[in-house]
């Protein structure tokens, strides 16, 4: 049918065909550039997402680098590392083109090494974020968008968890010798009984049963003893830490967290109460994880709170003096007898048990006095705790809180989470989850590209990198430069903006 039917054979199928290429470059380079175009679109999808989410976040909420433990210097170092690796792979290509295979290999190896360095530094950075609890996580990370009742109760939950855990461990440690003793006793008697049974020449069916059970039980006891010993060892090792940490956690739980939660839960909707509630939650959030930009607002909150407290104390003191003046001797006696260490629940204030031998009026006075004393003691206690854990001075020039450490050295306040790294309390970082989402998304996909590059390098490095391999190095280099390009934009966007 076609004009080729005659004069051609089609049995040797594969003849070498000629083409008319449009571009004066090899196909590998064409497809690589096309692939890079798709990569450009991929990363612009990711970076575009970051940009719109970041600049579209409610004004002033996006965390600054220091709020989320981003170290600009490491980012800059990594930028430099990637630039060097780009440079070295270009030099490798130049060497390969002039057929200096060993020189090419040296430069190529350097690129390979620098890629590793990049990933290593990236690993350090990731580690510090994970360490501080900054990462998106299901069902909820340690990051809270704002200081609200959810946040405060999450802090309390975490503290409770710590306290309960350590208390249980202490109890277990205390009872361990007892348990061990019991087990040993059982072991001793069982061994004796077993030996006795073994010694018998003719055993009844029942005794046979018993022997079987004992032979089964004895290794179990041994294992249990071993477990107990190793567990006790672990508990003992932790006991020193617990001794220090438990009181701190308890104090934070009872003195700030509960105070903040209960203040936050005050049931009244007038503006003053609303303000107080917010103040309590903000102060707690600041104590745990201070954000620099909140310092001024928190200082205002603290001042207002202090004024409030003083006012209340003055009022209470006046009332107390008046009641004292009018109180009967019996009432005062009874008052002295009461235990007035502050209870964690202010609700319990009114529950001072009336002494039976007082008249109803006297009881009423006693009750009121007890309540006042308790309240005052509580306030004092909280102030002391505040001084101990949160000894800060607001520096109005720098708009920061300054904290005097145990060594008497004054430095910027970094929060309870930083002071006591084991606390790992929930943090208030507005837009923090979004920040973590985008940060890990962008750097993660970039790191993935670095890893792919590493794999390609690993495949090429055993080859002889002479002029015949120049195209291969060139194409690998193009990919690698693209990875560098992406980082060139990520560095300012993520570290410096």
């Amino acid at each position, binding site marked *: 049918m076609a004009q080729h039917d005659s004069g051609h054979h*089609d049995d040797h*199928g*594969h003849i070498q065909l000629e083409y008319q290429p449009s571009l004066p470059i090899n*196909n590998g380079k064409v497809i690589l550039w*096309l692939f890079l175009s*798709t990569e450009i679109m991929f990363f612009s999808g990711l970076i575009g997402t970051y940009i719109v989410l970041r600049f579209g976040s409610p004004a002033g909420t996006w965390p600054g680098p220091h709020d989320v433990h981003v170290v600009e210097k490491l980012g800059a170092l990594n930028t430099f590392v990637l630039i060097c690796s780009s440079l070295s792979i270009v030099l490798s290509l130049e060497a390969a083109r002039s057929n200096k295979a060993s020189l090419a290999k040296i430069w190529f190896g350097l690129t390979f090494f620098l890629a590793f360095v990049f990933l290593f530094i990236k690993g350090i950075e990731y580690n510090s974020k994970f360490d501080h609890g900054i990462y998106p996580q299901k069902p909820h*990370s340690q990051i809270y968008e704002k200081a609200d009742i959810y946040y405060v109760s999450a802090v309390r939950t975490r503290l409770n968890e710590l306290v309960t855990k350590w208390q249980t461990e202490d109890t277990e440690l205390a009872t361990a010798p007892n348990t061990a003793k019991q087990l040993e006793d059982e072991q001793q008697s069982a061994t004796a009984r077993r030996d006795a049974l073994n010694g018998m020449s003719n055993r009844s069916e029942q005794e046979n049963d018993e022997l079987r059970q004992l032979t089964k039980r004895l290794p179990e006891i041994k294992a249990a003893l071993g477990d107990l010993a190793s567990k006790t060892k672990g508990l003992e090792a932790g006991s020193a830490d617990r001794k220090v940490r438990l009181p701190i956690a308890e104090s934070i739980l009872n003195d700030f967290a509960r105070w903040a939660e209960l203040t936050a839960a005050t049931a009244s909707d007038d503006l003053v109460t609303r303000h107080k509630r917010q103040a309590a939650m903000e102060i707690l959030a600041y104590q745990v994880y201070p954000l620099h930009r909140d310092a001024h607002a928190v200082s205002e909150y603290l001042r207002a709170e202090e004024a409030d407290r003083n006012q209340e104390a003055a009022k209470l003191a006046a009332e107390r003096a008046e009641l004292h003046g009018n109180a009967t001797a019996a009432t005062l006696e009874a008052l002295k007898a009461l235990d007035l260490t502050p209870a964690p629940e202010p609700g319990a204030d009114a529950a001072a048990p009336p002494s039976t031998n007082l008249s109803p009026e006297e009881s009423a006075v006693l009750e009121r006095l007890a309540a006042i004393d308790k309240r005052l003691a509580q306030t004092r206690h909280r102030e002391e705790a505040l001084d101990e854990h949160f000894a800060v001075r607001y520096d109005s020039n720098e708009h920061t809180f300054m904290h005097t450490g145990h060594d008497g050295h004054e430095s910027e306040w970094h929060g309870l989470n930083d002071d006591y790294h084991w606390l790992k309390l929930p943090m208030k970082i507005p*837009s923090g989850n*979004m920040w973590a989402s*985008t940060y890990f998304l962008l750097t993660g996909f970039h790191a993935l590209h670095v890893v792919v590059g590493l794999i390609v390098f690993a495949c090429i490095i055993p080859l002889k990198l002479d002029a015949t391999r120049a195209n291969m190095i060139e194409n690998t280099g193009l990919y690698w430069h693209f990875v560098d390009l992406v980082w060139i934009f990520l560095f300012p966007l993520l570290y410096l903006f």
Partner: protein
Amino acid sequence: MSSTIVDAHAGEHAHRGGVGAFISKYVFSRDHKIIGLQFLFSTLLWFLVGGLLALGIRIQLAWPWEGMPVIGPMLFAGEGGQISPEFYTTLFTMHATVMIFFVIIPILAGAFGNYLIPLMIGADDMAFPTLNMLSYWFMWPAFALIGMSFFFPPYGAGGGWTSYPPLSAVWEAAPGSHWPQTLWLLGVTCVGISSMLGSVNYMTTIIQMRAPGMTMFRLPMTIWAMFITAILQAFALPVLTAAGFMQLLDRVAGTGFFVPEGLVVNNSIAASGGGQPLLWQHLFWFYSHPAVYIMILPAMGMVSDIISCFSRKPLFGYKPMVFSISGIAGLGFIVWGHHMFVSGMNPILGMTFMVATMMIALPSAVKVFNWLGTIWGGRLYFTTPMLFSLSFVSMFIIGGLSGIFMAATPVDIFIHDTYFIVAHFHYVLFTGTAMAVFGAIYFWFPKMFGRMMNEQLGKLHFFLTFVFMNGTFYLMHILGARGFPRRLADPYDYETFSNLQPMNQFITICAIGMVASQIIFAGNFIYSMFWGPTVGRNPWRANGLEWTAPSPPGHGNFDFQPIVYRGPYEYGSPEVDTDYYPQTQPPPDGIEPTGKSEHTDH
């Protein structure tokens, strides 16, 4: 001429055993023709699955809650075979997913793109055969993942094929948004990787491996369309991949890209917040609007070739056709917002998108005009491929015109999420693309298998499909104009729609007829593959390069060096006696051959 092409290359694998040779030749083949056929068979099988899922939807809409045949007793025996509303969402989600990601896109780009590109430009294979093989094998993880999602209650993803957050981004949002939705995302990502690998390969092949003389403006429209489609895929798909990864992270890692602030699901706050559901819609449609052109441009290209061939006339306005395809593609990138008119997007953006969308009507109209111009005065052969192509053109007009309705923001606010939309995209995708695909299968079948398909059965297939599909989809316009909502398991719950049930029953009966008609096609296809009459190289007396290769072509495609002297549409040329003038035929004496080594592509 022999047709023993299959073993033309047998010597190379002679040392292999039977099974090994079979696997390397037909399973892990790097030959573009085998890969094309692999795509063709896989997609046709999924076409069947997608069609059955569609029937499930139709049965529920015609006779709600009356028990679904087969699936009902299997999955919902406890409820007497009555499907759950969640399963209904699964049905339409999976129908769309299968049809779009496993049928239309891979059958056009994967099957026909693979098979035709090297043959029509005169290359022995794709530029990177191994990559090409990978692009097929990346479909299999997708098949597996989507297949697996059918086994987690409620038996498939239920987020809609658009997978809109927050429903899809929150793990606990709804039944079917657990594992199936995650598997769905992974599956679609794999399709994306496959398409991406394919598209860069196609572009490289078309740019670099054209036969001598085959300038860019001598390429058949099919190749132009494939080229533009590849560009669309290369630029749009990575964005969807990126968005897909983000949604995946939202689901499994607790990020919050698409989860809004303070979202309460099941009486609890979603784990994270501060994201933007609208962001997903933007990123998704940034791909998925161009994707509708990925789903129709290749069909337009193939139809152009078929119409010109069977009108025995040059394609009317070849260059305007090329420019209008490019125009559609270019405009296609700036109109995605028309899917979001009621999403609460910025109104200024909505206005921009409306105007841009309306402008797409211009290049589309140019194309229709050119097809009509090609037919006008031609010597028409009403072969099966021609019938399907003519049907494509006429149905595309209906689908295109209804598109203009919804491009207009005020109208769209009324018809959004109604059956009007469903009617529109089925007119474009089924009565448009699917018909063109049928036409293309009938047209290139002789090249693929060296045998003809039966014309009588083909025509019967055409007429039945044509009648039933219009019965199915046309009435949906009326449903939609009356507000009948899509994606609702039982719209008759609303008093307003209860009188629309008879119309839905009619539609369902037509749909069943339409699916049943495909049995004729399947039978014809399978019978002809083995027992159809064998053909020579050029049964249709067409001009394209592929018709100068053996049928089916052997390894390396061409048994001679093709040299191209002219474009592919020189039908009825006065230079020769025949009414066709193959691209490789040297001009008669006295006429100077032109353009042998021209570099005039850009």
